[in-house]
């Protein structure tokens, strides 16, 4: 005779295995003093163009590297190689997002101690990447002016999971009658207090300001690490 079913209380995070790897990555990045920024957006918002420009711009002052995720092709890595920065492509096959284990595997042969900043470009997708922590310090969500001002309201989860927003392709703003104020209202509705940058990879507008911001965020991280090390020694 079957026993009566009973309810057993458990508490298990479904993405625990990803979170464990992400935590390990974060500890490695911390120990190496590497500041890590991930980029998420819909396909075609200009992540790769933006990355190419920002890598070229920051390459003179920092030791940089980039990981780029795509379902297929090595095209993005080939494009980014023009910036003279070490770039590795992660092809996910049919998977619509990057997971922490893929980042860990891709970094295996790289010496993190020799890196000031690491960029991780996620697969173009505004839904799935929101669930996966990659151990990054900063998650930037990109939104191009051609996508419509209400994108944050349509994809509130990814905007809420991100730390900053980048409005890209500002050189096209006038042609598509982009309403920057309305976009900002929508961003602030789903993520109050979110810092937003406007950039154009074509003209270079806004890139300097963003590069300075990343530099200062890295300096903040190094300061935190030094303070922590001092406290531990005492």
């Amino acid at each position, binding site marked *: 005779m*079957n*026993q*009566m*079913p*009973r*309810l*057993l*209380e*458990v*508490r*298990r*995070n*479904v*993405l*625990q*295995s*990803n979170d464990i790897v992400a935590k390990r990555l974060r500890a490695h990045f911390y120990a190496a003093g590497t500041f890590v920024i991930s980029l998420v957006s819909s396909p075609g918002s200009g992540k790769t163009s933006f990355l190419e420009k920002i890598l070229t711009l920051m390459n003179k002052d920092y030791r940089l590297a980039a990981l780029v995720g795509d379902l297929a092709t090595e095209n993005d890595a080939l494009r980014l190689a023009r910036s003279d920065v070490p770039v590795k492509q992660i092809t996910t096959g049919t*998977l*619509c*997002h990057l*997971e922490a284990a893929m980042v860990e595997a891709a970094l295996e042969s790289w010496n993190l101690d020799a890196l000031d900043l690491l960029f991780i470009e996620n697969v173009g997708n505004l*839904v*799935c990447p*929101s*669930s996966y922590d990659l151990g990054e310090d900063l998650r930037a969500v990109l939104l191009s002016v051609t996508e419509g001002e209400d994108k944050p*309201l349509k994809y*509130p*989860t*990814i905007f*809420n*999971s991100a730390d900053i927003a980048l409005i890209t392709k500002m050189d096209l703003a006038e042609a598509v009658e982009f309403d920057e104020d309305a976009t900002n209202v929508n961003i*602030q*509705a*789903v*993520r*109050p*207090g*979110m810092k937003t940058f406007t950039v154009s990879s074509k003209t270079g507008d806004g890139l300097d300001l963003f590069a300075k911001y990343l530099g200062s965020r890295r300096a903040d991280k190094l300061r935190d690490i030094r303070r922590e090390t001092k406290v531990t020694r005492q």
Partner: protein
Amino acid sequence: MHELSIAVSMVSVVQEEARRHQFCVSAVHLRLGPLSGVDKHALLSAYLMACYDTPLENSRLIIDEVPIVIYCSTCQAKRTLPSIQRFCCPECATPTSQVVQGRELEVVGLEVE
């Protein structure tokens, strides 16, 4: 559509528990928040696929959808958000990013035999 990856992770988490306690699982209770980025209906379909040919094959997935709860610093109270498109206190309209509930994607109970 990453719900299949999520369902596969869920099946492995549940099987781990089942092996550890040596019981047979007939239903899995999951708490799901709107900020988890996971769709309930897609997850229910994906669960069937992920369970195929595993000891969980005939188990049921019961999803408890929880609302987003924020902390309002003006009211000094927790409030349930009526909409995922507006992160502000429904009482006093103060904008807030302090989410206290809504990111859940966790197995909270197993019906076992």
